[in-house]
């Protein structure tokens, strides 16, 4: 029995490792000096990483991505938390309609709003700035955050707040000292998900940026320069660098992430 389950455990793990082969292939390519994974036995090196970090737009793009994704996440969290509380707990006329609008805007495709957003960005003179991409990202990050956080707040027992009210705390004080600490892990899960979406977003970032000043990592990777032939080794190294933040976050905060992912889908 014991050996049977070890075989099953090993098979499942091996199957998933096989599934990840495309990533491994890219990783090996990035570490092989010739950019041909068949030469892997001749030795590994970091030449492609050095080329990308010293002579490509990638470092600047990574910095842009960190700034833009962090700002979009922060903006969404700060705006979403109070709104989510009101939607989950307070008497709000038209609440159902508001919730419907918020859910439907999470479904809205970027291509549907990109043209008007482009006109706004151009009219405000924001083309090729961080702010343009941050604002565009907010259009999906904010409704998503409100929706997730409202779900987490609904899960808090009402008695907790009522106890605080009995003790003479005002609504706002109860919100700050009772609700916020309890919902903090949910907020963190929503923020993590928002950050990932903002980091990976391509359509808005590609449309609103024009130079290294604001291009994000996915855009820089999509436009990765090759003069005469495609530099597969460099592209592989750039791919790995662009993936590093999301991969580290996801693997490091796996539990929070899974919680955030499941919150929207599993309880209804």
């Amino acid at each position, binding site marked *: 029995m014991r050996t049977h389950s070890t075989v099953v455990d090993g098979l499942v793990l091996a199957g998933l490792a096989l599934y990840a082969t495309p990533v491994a292939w890219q990783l090996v390519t990035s570490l092989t000096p010739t950019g041909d994974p068949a030469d892997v036995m001749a030795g590994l090196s970091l030449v492609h990483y050095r080329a990308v970090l010293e002579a490509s737009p990638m470092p600047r793009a990574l910095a842009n991505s960190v700034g833009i994704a962090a700002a979009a996440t922060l903006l969404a969290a700060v705006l979403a938390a109070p709104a989510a509380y009101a939607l989950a707990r307070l008497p709000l006329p038209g609440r159902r309609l508001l919730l419907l609008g918020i859910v439907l805007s999470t479904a809205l495709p970027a291509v549907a709003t990109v043209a008007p957003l482009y006109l706004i960005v151009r009219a405000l003179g924001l083309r090729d700035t961080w702010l343009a991409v941050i604002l565009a990202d907010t259009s999906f990050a904010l409704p998503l955050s409100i929706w997730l956080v409202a779900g987490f707040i609904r899960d808090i027992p009402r008695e907790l707040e009522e106890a605080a009210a009995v003790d003479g705390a005002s609504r706002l004080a109860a919100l700050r000292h009772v609700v916020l600490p309890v919902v903090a892990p949910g907020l963190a899960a929503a923020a993590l998900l928002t950050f990932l979406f903002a980091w990976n977003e391509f359509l808005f970032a590609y449309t609103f940026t024009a130079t290294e000043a604001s291009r994000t990592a996915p855009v820089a990777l999509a436009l990765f320069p090759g003069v005469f032939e495609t530099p597969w080794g460099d592209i592989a190294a750039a791919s790995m660098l662009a993936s590093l933040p999301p991969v580290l976050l996801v693997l490091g905060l796996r539990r929070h992430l899974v919680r955030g992912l499941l919150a929207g889908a*599993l309880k209804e």
Partner: protein
Amino acid sequence: MTARGDRRLAWILVAPALGVLAVVTGYPVARVLSLSLERRVPIFGIADFVGLANYAFLLRDPAFWNALRVTVLFTVTSVALELVLGVAAAVALRAQRRWQGASLSLLLLPWCLPGVVTGRIFEWIYHPSAGLVNRLIAFVANGQPNWLGDPHLALPALIAADVWRTTPFIALLVYARLASVPPAVYEAAAVDGAGRVASFWRITLPLLFPVLLVALLFRTLDALRAFDLMFILTGGGPAGVTETLTLYAYRSLFQTLQLGFGAASAVVVGTLVVAIAWGHLSAAEGRGANA
């Protein structure tokens, strides 16, 4: 605490979020609708009201019908494959007693990569002479198929990349649902003489139905909106066989810079997606009311 005080507080709390949403979502939605009724080409300073002419042109454009066909084919095939593979992966994960953490991490890896990275990875894997796929094929057969350049192979190759990227999401949802089923349910079935296969069909699948419905919705919406993967891998080619509605709309908007006409096709994509989301919500509400 008065009810009126609560209501005022509620408005104060939602106002900032609603204000921002009005600018980044509400206005753009209204504007894209009005834009779709204009002939607007900014570089020539053209902006005329033309009514439904853009939509009429859309319906006469064979490229639009092709994009619609590709979109439906891409969405139905990839979502169906993802659901089947996702359930299989989740069931396999549940059978695992140890190393589940490592398995979950491996599963999350393809899901969390930026779409552009996935595009670049598969572009390299599909490379006609140096790609992994053709190197493996070389062991068993002759010939080097040009996966992304051959009109018969490009769409299946694109679908494979999309399935690879998103199956983990479904596997994760299903896995979490399975984990919440009390083992007693299966033990009772075993006592009643149900085999593994029977209990999968009679117990597991019915229990999974609600979460599969949600997964189906999320994935359908994402597949309809998909952009980055095809933008990198094929750009809609060869000969339009991978041009989805999203790519078609984007191309009209920003490559030919016909904002009005592009807006009309963007409205079609948006309407399709929002209608499906709405339909799902009303259906879910109906089921909730009956339960």
